[in-house]
């Protein structure tokens, strides 16, 4: 059987890939030019190898409007990790309590947590800000992360998984003498590991990509995330050093993309399975 090459599919898919790769590539190339060249509007498709020094420079010194990029990358990384890990831990505990036990007001607790799904941060910015202010958490790292840890997506996802754990597995563990804590630690969590991996990817990206909340909460440059830093660098566009902005943009994309690509299989499975 001869395989006819499916040209239409290949062309469309290649165009699709180009749609996403091209902007990144152009920005990468642009980052190796000088600011003057860019201001003159000189395009380039090939990155100039000699211009790669801008990356080291930008990591060290940043650009007018924002501090050193390495610090911003660190802040973003810490934020993404804290949010991912924090959310996972809290959600596992809550989902476990709600599915594997019965206690008074259990369903009330579930619905309370469920409500948080309906309240994305954009909808409650002002009042949440004033709460943070009252608690003295403005411009602190906990202030940037804690409000983003509480929402329900992860809890619901874990609940779905926990609901379908086979009854026999639980009974076998009980007969082996495992109590609820041991069961969680030794069996439930390992068995849910692919969900965990998927969630980690989703939450890490979510945490890294936050814009509105850190914008409000961080009032000193030390706490700028990389995303906010870049927008600041662009600033009013009068003194922007465009090549440095471009270099920073590339750097800002590397960690989340790396996480997604390396854990791609679990991520896709977790995203689509979890919605069932």
């Amino acid at each position, binding site marked *: 059987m001869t395989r006819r090459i499916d040209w239409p599919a290949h062309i469309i898919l290649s165009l699709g890939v180009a749609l996403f790769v091209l902007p990144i590539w152009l920005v990468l190339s642009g980052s190796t030019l000088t600011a003057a060249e860019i201001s003159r509007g000189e395009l380039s498709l090939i990155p100039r190898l000699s211009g790669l020094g801008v990356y080291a420079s930008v990591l060290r010194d940043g650009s007018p409007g924002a501090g050193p990029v390495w610090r911003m990358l660190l802040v973003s990384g810490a934020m993404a990790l804290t949010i991912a890990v924090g959310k996972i831990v809290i959600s596992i505990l809550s989902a476990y309590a709600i599915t594997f036990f019965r206690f008074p007001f259990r369903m009330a607790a579930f619905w309370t947590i469920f409500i948080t799904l309906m309240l994305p941060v954009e909808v409650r910015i002002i009042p949440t800000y004033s709460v943070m202010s009252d608690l003295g958490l403005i411009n602190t790292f906990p202030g940037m992360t804690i409000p983003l840890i509480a929402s329900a997506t992860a809890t619901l996802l874990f609940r779905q998984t926990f609901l379908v754990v086979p009854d*026999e*597995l639980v*009974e076998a563990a009980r*007969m*082996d*003498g*495992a109590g609820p804590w041991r069961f969680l630690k030794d*069996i439930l969590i390992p068995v849910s590991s692919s969900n965990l991996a998927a969630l980690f990817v989703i939450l890490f990206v979510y945490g890294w990509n936050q814009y509105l909340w850190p914008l409000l909460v961080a009032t000193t440059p030390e706490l700028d995330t990389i995303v906010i830093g870049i927008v600041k660098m662009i600033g009013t566009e009068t003194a922007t050093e465009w090549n440095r902005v471009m270099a920073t943009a590339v750097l800002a994309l590397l960690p989340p993309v790396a996480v997604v690509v390396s854990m791609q299989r679990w991520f896709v499975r977790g995203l689509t399975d979890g919605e069932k």
Partner: protein
Amino acid sequence: MATLILDDIRKSFGKTAVLHGVDLALHSGEMLVIVGASGCGKSTLLRLVAGLEEPTSGRILIDDTDVTNRDPSQRDIAMVFQNYALYPHMSVFDNMAYGLRIRKLSDAEIKRRVDEAAGLLELGHLLDRKPAQLSGGQRQRVAMGRAIVREPKLFLFDEPLSNLDATLRVTMRAEIRRLQRRMGVTSLYVTHDQVEAMTLGDRLLVLHKGVPVQLATPMEVFHRPANTYVAGFIGAPAMNLLAGKLAQGGRAVALEIGETIVFADGPRAGADGMALTIGIRPEHLRLADDGFTLPVDLVEPLGSETVVIGKLESGTLLTIKLAHSHVTDSFLRVRIPPEHLHVFDAGSGLRLEPGAG
């Protein structure tokens, strides 16, 4: 190595009563098979003994100790689940070792027990594999291994063979029997498959809708079923059950299909005309030139024997199992031998013995 006593066990889920007073006493080393159709309560009974459910009333005693209120892990019992319930993320070794680790046995002791069980079950070369890498039969053996290493007082089997294909089932059945005999551990085995029941049990408990109907050895259950339910349940193809009336002063039965047969083992008590159900197994019906005519409806040649289903004018079906392998006639002449009759009261379904007054 332990005795098990169930004392008037009853269980209801909410308003639904599932078990209506089960009494049982297992001898040490005995394998008792609880058999019955789906929904008869046999799994519930097993889970009560396991401690996974609590009885609504009644007591459970293992080695004369009342364990009715004890947690499963404190009854010194081990269970083999229908779907094996292996921990998917642990190796075979760890699956078997888990319960021992929780009980804080020494590593050396754990290794000794696991290796010994692995040897018995031929799992030695699979100890590092995960359940997903094993076949159904291998997983089943790991499930048994997990129970064996616990060295418990009691083994509980919850339909462990129902997920295996037919050939594997036959092999595993023999292995379970061999193992249980060798280890001599008192065992409770639940199944809906009457062949498993007959081959594995030292004694059988037939459950029907939560009520224990007969507790006896397999041969006893086969040859002298206590009621029409047991009669129809044990033995394949199922026993033929025909309606009839007591006649000739209790010495014979007038079958609805027209034949009258004199009892070979003695008269039954009761007035003429009393409604009876007569049982005759398909393998006991005989071809005879002086028998009644049975139109053939369906012939099932099985190779070693032939099953013929005949349909009488009244619509009653009669199943015959013949040793001949070639049946082409459109009707057979059939005789019901009186020495193989089973007599039951039509109303209660209970077996009627001769002479009972």
